[in-house]
């Protein structure tokens, strides 16, 4: 599953969509982020990133410098990296939405719920949806260690 990057100009800014797996073969030099006033990344389809990929990502988004950067639809993999490595989300960058895994231990069902800024969270405050149900109508629980997963909201 090769990594694909698409950059679409939107006014003075750009919409950047990244999908697939970011690994040691990824060369972001062909996806320049220079020349845009702001960048909005869409990351729902980013399915994997390894340690070399993390390094390449940091080098890539580090070229943005002080222009506004917003990450949308971050998968768990992206949130894990934001929490683990400073620089994965550039300084001053913002997460506008991200997925939170839910799980029901009895049915074993797993589900990802999109948390949106201003709705399911605001600043450091979480407002999780009241009822997340599996296919059988059973309550599902948030499937993360909250102190670790939501660490990035505290900046």
């Amino acid at each position, binding site marked *: *599953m*090769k990594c694909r990057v698409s950059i679409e100009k939107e006014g003075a800014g750009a919409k950047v969509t990244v999908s697939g*797996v970011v*690994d*040691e*073969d990824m060369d972001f030099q062909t996806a320049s982020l220079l020349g845009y006033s702001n960048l909005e990344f869409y990351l729902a389809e980013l399915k*994997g990133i*390894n*340690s*070399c990929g*993390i*390094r390449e990502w*940091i*080098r890539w988004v580090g070229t943005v410098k002080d222009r506004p950067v917003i990450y949308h639809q971050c998968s*768990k*993999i992206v949130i*894990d990296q934001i929490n*683990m*490595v*400073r*620089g994965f989300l550039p300084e001053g960058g913002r997460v506008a939405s991200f997925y939170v*895994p839910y*799980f029901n*231990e009895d049915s*074993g069902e*797993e589900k990802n719920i999109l948390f949106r800024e201003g709705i399911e969270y605001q600043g450091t405050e979480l407002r999780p949806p009241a009822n997340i149900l599996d296919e059988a109508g059973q309550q599902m629980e*948030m*499937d*993360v*260690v909250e102190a*670790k997963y939501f660490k990035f909201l505290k900046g």
Partner: protein
Amino acid sequence: MKFSPQSQSILGTQYCEDEQDSSVSVYLLDELATDDQAKTSLYLGQESEPTRFLAKMADRGIVNLVQGLGPLELKKGIARWVRLMKSRERFFSDPGGVHFGTTFHKKVFRIQAPPEKILLRSRIGEVLGQVTNESGCEVGLTVFEELYMNAMLDAPREAGGSVGNREVLFEISWDDVEFVISCRDSWGSLDAGRLLKKMADVHARGAAASMNMNRAGGAGIGSMILLQNADSIVFGVWPTLFTLVSCRFARAGGFRSRMETLKSLCFYTYQELKNERSSL
């Protein structure tokens, strides 16, 4: 095994009397043991924070750590470790067999060069999809990525060889409860002692501060990613022949239970041990 009084208090006297069949000493991680015992002893822990248990291991040269929430988990871990120590050589050719001991299933994949990686990842993903749930697939594939880089790219570099001229073998093995991803390179260049110190250092300093931003080498945080995702890791080295890294996971359960599992670690170098201890 010779159990320290503290380890006996956790495991129970009866169990410790039944298991007294070898010269291996068993201590709790927090006990003070002399440095010369650390390499050959088994340590038991209940420490969730990797920074803390890795620092203790690196400081004292501890290479065998079994962790578990209670006596049952610890005894299961001890049994696994004993099986591994009794089959140190066989582990390099049959990691699943050594891990599970009895009935299990396995799939083996061999690759020679980086262009084969995409197909391999997809085939491993297919097997994981049959063996575990979505979170298991995610942690399994994350670990696969790091094992692949260690074996295919880092090992030849460390051995002064070139990428793509020696086979890398992956094995996924499983029983009803657990699955294991093992990766064996054909270089045997891993320095287990150095790796342990590096893991402790990376965890102590944090990923960003430890990361090698120079493209000429690995990023330096792969071991951190392995430890975050796997329930236990065995690093076995047969110098100049093989390095085998074997990671264990639960087949069921969500991300939270995977994160909260207490991690076990074992580092061994086959020739060293062969000389040091003839049997358990």
